[in-house]
C-alpha cells in the first residue's frame, strides 16, 4: 500500500474530475477551455522536462509545436487554402508532422546544446522568432494568413459536432506524456541527464558525452511538443504565424513558470490557470482586451515572489518538499545562481 500524501490525493481527485468533466462542465468549458488546457499543458510539460531534468529553459518549444502544426496543415488540407495542399490522410499528416518536428528539434538541439543557462534561452528565442518570421514570409507553406480547414482524423470527427472525442484524445495524450516523462526521468538516460544538469564538467570527465545527452533530451522534448502541435491544429482547424509569435512563445513560458519550472505536473496546473484567466479576464471591465498586461503582471509577481510557481506555493503550504533529501525545488533553474557558459 502506497502512502497517502496530499500530492496523491490531489492527483487522484484531479484525474477523476478530468475524466468526468463532460458530465459536470458545460460544453463550452470542455470544448474550449479544458481541451486547450490539455494541449498547452503538453507543450509546457516539454519545457518543464527540459528545465527540470536538463537545466535547459527552452523558448523553442512553441516553434516546434508550430512546425508540427504547419506540417499537418500542409499535408492534410486539400485545395482550398494556402500551403502545399497535399491532401494526405490525417493519420499520415500526424506522422509527418511529428517526424519533421523531431528532425528540426534535433538540429536546433545539436546547435544549442553546447550552451547553457541564459545563452541557451537566447539561442532558443532566436529559433522561435525566426520560425515565426519564416512561416510569415514563405508563402509556399503558409504566409501571413495561415492554413485553414485542417481536418481531424475519423475517430475524432468534426470537432464542433463531437467536442468530447477530441477532449478525451487530448486527455489520453496528456496522461501518456506525463507517464512517459516520469518514466524517462528514471531511466539511466534521465539520471545521466540530471547529472549533466548539476555538474557537466564532472559528467564529461566521467566519460559521458554531455552535448549528446543534451541534444537527445532536446529532441525528445521536441517530440512531446510536436504531439501538442498536432492536437492544436485538430482543435483549431487553422494555424497561422501568429499562433507561434513571440507572444505565444512567452505564453507557454508563463504557463510553465506559473506551474513551477521543476515539476512536470505544474504544466497542466499553469495551463488551467492561464486559460481560465484568459477567458474570464475579458469580462472584467477595467482589463477587457488588456489580457497580456494582466498575465505579464502575474508572471512578474510569480518570478519576484514565488519562483516555484503555484506548485511551489502548494509545496510550501503542505510542507512537502522541505526536508526531503531529494527536494524537487532544487531542480528549479530560477533559484539556482549563475551558471557558467560552455562545457
Amino acid at each position: 500500500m502506497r502512502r497517502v500524501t496530499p500530492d496523491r490525493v490531489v492527483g487522484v481527485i484531479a484525474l477523476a474530475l478530468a475524466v468526468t468533466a463532460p458530465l459536470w462542465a458545460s460544453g463550452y468549458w470542455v470544448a474550449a477551455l479544458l481541451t486547450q488546457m490539455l494541449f498547452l499543458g503538453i507543450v509546457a510539460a516539454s519545457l518543464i522536462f527540459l528545465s527540470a531534468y536538463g537545466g535547459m529553459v527552452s523558448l523553442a518549444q512553441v516553434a516546434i509545436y508550430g512546425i508540427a502544426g504547419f506540417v499537418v496543415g500542409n499535408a492534410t488540407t486539400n485545395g482550398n487554402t494556402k500551403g502545399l495542399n497535399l491532401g494526405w490522410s490525417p493519420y499520415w499528416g500526424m506522422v509527418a508532422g511529428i517526424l519533421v518536428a523531431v528532425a528540426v528539434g534535433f538540429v536546433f538541439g545539436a546547435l544549442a546544446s553546447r550552451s547553457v543557462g541564459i545563452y541557451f534561452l537566447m539561442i532558443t528565442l532566436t529559433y522561435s522568432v525566426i520560425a515565426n518570421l519564416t512561416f510569415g514570409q514563405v508563402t509556399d507553406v503558409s504566409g501571413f494568413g495561415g492554413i485553414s480547414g485542417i481536418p481531424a482524423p475519423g475517430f475524432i470527427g468534426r470537432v464542433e459536432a463531437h467536442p468530447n472525442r477530441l477532449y478525451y484524445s487530448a486527455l489520453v495524450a496528456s496522461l501518456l506524456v506525463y507517464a512517459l516523462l516520469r518514466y524517462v526521468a528514471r531511466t539511466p538516460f534521465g539520471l545521466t541527464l540530471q547529472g549533466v544538469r548539476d555538474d557537466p564538467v564532472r559528467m564529461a570527465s566521467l566519460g559521458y558525452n554531455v552535448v549528446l545527452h543534451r541534444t537527445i533530451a532536446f529532441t525528445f522534448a521536441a517530440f512531446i511538443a510536436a504531439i501538442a502541435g498536432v492536437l492544436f491544429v485538430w482543435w483549431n482547424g487553422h494555424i497561422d504565424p501568429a499562433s507561434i509569435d513571440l507572444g505565444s512563445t512567452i505564453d507557454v513560458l508563463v504557463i510553465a513558470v506559473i506551474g513551477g519550472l521543476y515539476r512536470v505536473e505544474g504544466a497542466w496546473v499553469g495551463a488551467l490557470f492561464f486559460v481560465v484567466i484568459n477567458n474570464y479576464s475579458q469580462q472584467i471591465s477595467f482589463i477587457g482586451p488588456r489580457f497580456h498586461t494582466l498575465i505579464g503582471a502575474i508572471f512578474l509577481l510569480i518570478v519576484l515572489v514565488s519562483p516555484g510557481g503555484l506548485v511551489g506555493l502548494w509545496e510550501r503550504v503542505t510542507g512537502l518538499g522541505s526536508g526531503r533529501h531529494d527536494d524537487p525545488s532544487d531542480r528549479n533553474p530560477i533559484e539556482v545562481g549563475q551558471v557558467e557558459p560552455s562545457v
Partner: protein
Amino acid sequence: MTDTALERPRAVSNRARHLALRRRILHVVGWALLVVVVVLPALWVLFLAPTTGKWATAFGSAVHDPKDFWITMLNGITAAALYFVVASGFTLIFGLMRVVNMAHGAFFLLGGYIALKLQRNMVGEGGGFGLTSAQVNLTHWIVPAIVATLIVAAMGVTMQQVFLRWNQGQDLRQALITIAIAIILADQMLAHFGGVAEDIAWPRNFDKFVNFRVEGIQYTATRLIILGIALVIGLLLWLWLKKTRTGMVIRAGVDDRAMVSALGINIQLTFALAFAVGSALAALGGVIGGSFASLAPGLDANWLLYSLVVVIIGGMGSLAGAAIGSLLLGLTTNFAAAYLPSSYTYYSIIFTFILVAIVLAVRPLGLFGRPA
C-alpha cells in the same frame, strides 16, 4: 541505452584513436561546409546570378550589374549600422551585469513611439498619412529624439533599480523579469499607440539623395546619416570604455565584480549608468528605425531578435563583436533578399538562421566571445 557514444569509453587508447579520427572528419566537413556557405554564394553573387530563366534574380550578377551590387552592399552596411546602435546597448548591459535584457526590443519601440508623439505635438498631426519631411525641420527631429532617449534611459534605470538590483547573479530569474516587463510594455503600447504602422518624419535637410559619381549611384542621405550616427556612437563607446576612468571600472567589473567592489568603488552606480546608456541606445535605435522604416506592434520582437542574433554571432559583451555581428547580419539579409532568385526572395529570412547556426557550430560563444 545501447548507443556506444552514451557509454563510458572502455580504453583510453581506443578513445584517443576515436578522437583523432573524429577531428580529421570534422576538419574535412568543416572545409566542405565553408565552401558551401561562403564560396558558392560569393560566386553566385559575383558571377553566376542570371537575369532570365528559372533562376532569374532581380539584378543579375555583380559583373553584369555593378551598380546594384554596390547599392546592396551599402544597404547592408547601413542596416548593420542600425543593428549596431541597438545591439551595442544590449551587449553593454550584458557584458557588465550578465543581465539579458529581454525588454530591449520593447525599449526600442517605446523610444520610437515617444519621439513620434512628440514630433506630432510639435508640428501637428499632418495629413491622413502623417507628417512629410517637408513639414519637419532639424529641431523637430532632434528634440524628440533626445527627449525619448532620456525618458527610456530613466525607465531602464528604474527597472534595474527596482527589479534587478536585489537578485544579482540569478541571471535566469532576471531574464524572466525583463520578459514580464516586455510583455506589459508591448501590451500597453498597443493600447496607447494603436496597431497601425506609423513613421517619424526625417527633417527636410536629411531627405535627399547623394550622388556618389561612381557607377551613377544615387543614394539616400538618410541611410548615410544612420551610418554616421552609428560610427560616432561606436567611437564614443570605444573611447568611453577604453580611455576613461568609468570605462576602466566597467571593464574591471566585467572581469571581477566582487574585487572592484572590494576596492571601494561604487559598482552599483556604474551598473545604473551602464543600464541607462544601454536603454538609451535602444531608444535612439527606435527613433532612427521609426524614421527609416516604421513603428508597429510586433517590431519589438524583430528588434529583440536582431539584438540577440548580433550578440550570439559576435559574442556577448564585446563591442567589436557587436560591430562584426551587425555587419554580418546586415550583409547577409540584404544580399539574400537581393540575390535569391526572384520567386524565392522570401526565403531570405532562412539565411539569418543559417548564419546563427554556422557561428554556433563553430564557436558556441560567438566570434569574440569568451567564457564568463
